[in-house]
């Protein structure tokens, strides 16, 4: 769900735009470290993947359906900086070319759906991975935790923006209740799909999962007799 024009007032939108620009700048810099000179084609293709995967709808209670935000998924698969960048690029394209989300709300949309989901999702993923045993099977569990919290966290930040810059006087309790309630459910769907997707990539190409780096067992050389 993209925020349209006129939903949040000017100063708050402008503030969010500054945050978004800073986030993209940090993402660009970090992505070059994560992907080196292959940044442009690889980040572009991963952004196209995020764009496609956002079309995967899953049923939420009561006949409504949510779609994947993909921030945590992208961050775990390709690294947090490239993840922020890819989600931001998808939102930028949707706002500029597809008229999905208002032009003046672009900063808000990028801050909430790009930066917050990736920072919270990837941060918790790292934290959970540190607490779990250092095995490949821990990665999907940590991915589940990260994605589960990232979506309601984004809803919380949205509520915060609404509290300081909402153009209509709705009691914040109602906004928070509705937004966070729905997004806890969406978060469960997001977590299940994120964990399952990470685990399926891990089974085929563990080298492509950025979040699982350092978990591979070092190559062991043995002689024909089985001695090391």
């Amino acid at each position, binding site marked *: 769900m993209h925020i*349209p*024009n*006129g*939903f949040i007032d*000017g100063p708050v939108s402008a503030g969010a735009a500054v945050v978004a620009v800073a986030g*993209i700048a940090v993402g*660009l810099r970090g992505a*070059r470290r994560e992907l080196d*000179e*292959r*940044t*442009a*084609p*690889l*980040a*572009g*293709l*991963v*952004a*196209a*993947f995020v*764009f*496609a*995967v956002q*079309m*995967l709808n*899953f*049923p939420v209670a009561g006949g409504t359906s949510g779609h994947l935000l993909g921030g945590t998924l992208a961050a775990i*698969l*390709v690294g947090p900086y490239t993840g922020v*960048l890819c989600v931001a*690029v*998808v939102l*930028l*394209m949707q*706002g*500029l*070319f*597809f*008229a*999905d989300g*208002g*032009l*003046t709300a672009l900063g808000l949309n990028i801050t909430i759906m790009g930066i917050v989901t990736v920072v919270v999702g990837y941060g918790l993923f790292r934290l959970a991975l540190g607490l779990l045993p250092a095995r490949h099977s821990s990665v999907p569990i940590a991915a589940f935790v990260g994605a589960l919290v990232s979506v309601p966290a984004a809803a919380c930040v949205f509520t915060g923006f609404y509290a300081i810059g909402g*153009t*209509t*006087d*709705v*009691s914040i309790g*109602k906004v928070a209740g509705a937004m966070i309630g729905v997004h806890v459910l969406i978060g469960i*769907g997001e977590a*299940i*799909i994120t964990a*399952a*997707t*990470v*685990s*399926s*990539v891990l089974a085929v190409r563990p080298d*492509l999962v950025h979040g699982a780096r350092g978990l591979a067992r070092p190559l062991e050389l043995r002689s024909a007799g089985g001695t090391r």
Partner: protein
Amino acid sequence: MSAGHGHRLYRPGDSPVHRLPPHCKLLALVGFVLATVSTPREVYWAFGAYAVLLVGVAVLARVPAGFLLRRMLVELPFVGFALLLPFVANGPDVQVLGLSVSRDGLLGAWNIMAKGTLGVVAGVLLAATTELRALLLGLQKLRMPPLLVQIMSFMLRYGGVITAEMGRMRIARESRGFVARDLRQTPAVAKSAGALFIRSYERGERVHLAMLSRGYTGTMPVILDTRATGAQWAAAAALPVAALVVWAGALTL
């Protein structure tokens, strides 16, 4: 998958609006949207005037009403939210059609519907009259970082390919009797998503090698030079200037 066809957002044409350089149109759009967003919501006539301006652009660009209306459906989720506002907002109530609704909520709903719709129509008009590739060049002209523009252009170029790949996977699943009813069917969908990621990433690696073999050094050559003349700037400025006049009128009247 072959190149050469336009995007479905774009309507090929040769109207005065189509011929304007992309960066002029982008700035015109930003100016127009800023004027609409900063107009006080109680000045109802101003939003009518903005709508008339956009209809003028649509007529000039020969974009049919049906196309505009279809593309406006993207706005629907928030229309639902806006319709709820009168019933949940605080403040004094008014009677509308026998229902007691919040006055502030009603105004808020109107505010979102009016400003949101104007923004969507303006954005759709821009995308309908400008090739997306040209829009990216326009962004580069407006000093967006070249790396970001390159990433966007790759996303645009391969977005269709990846989406089509996902569509083929869905057809393959469904032709084997798969129906996604609830979350229990997630593993199958997630395996497709994982395969899609691997294919996308590997395609990115192949694209990069293909670029290197054609002499890529980190920047893309600019083949199309889009320099704007004074007359073109003036033509593009017509919309935001007209909007500015309405905006000034709304603030003073």
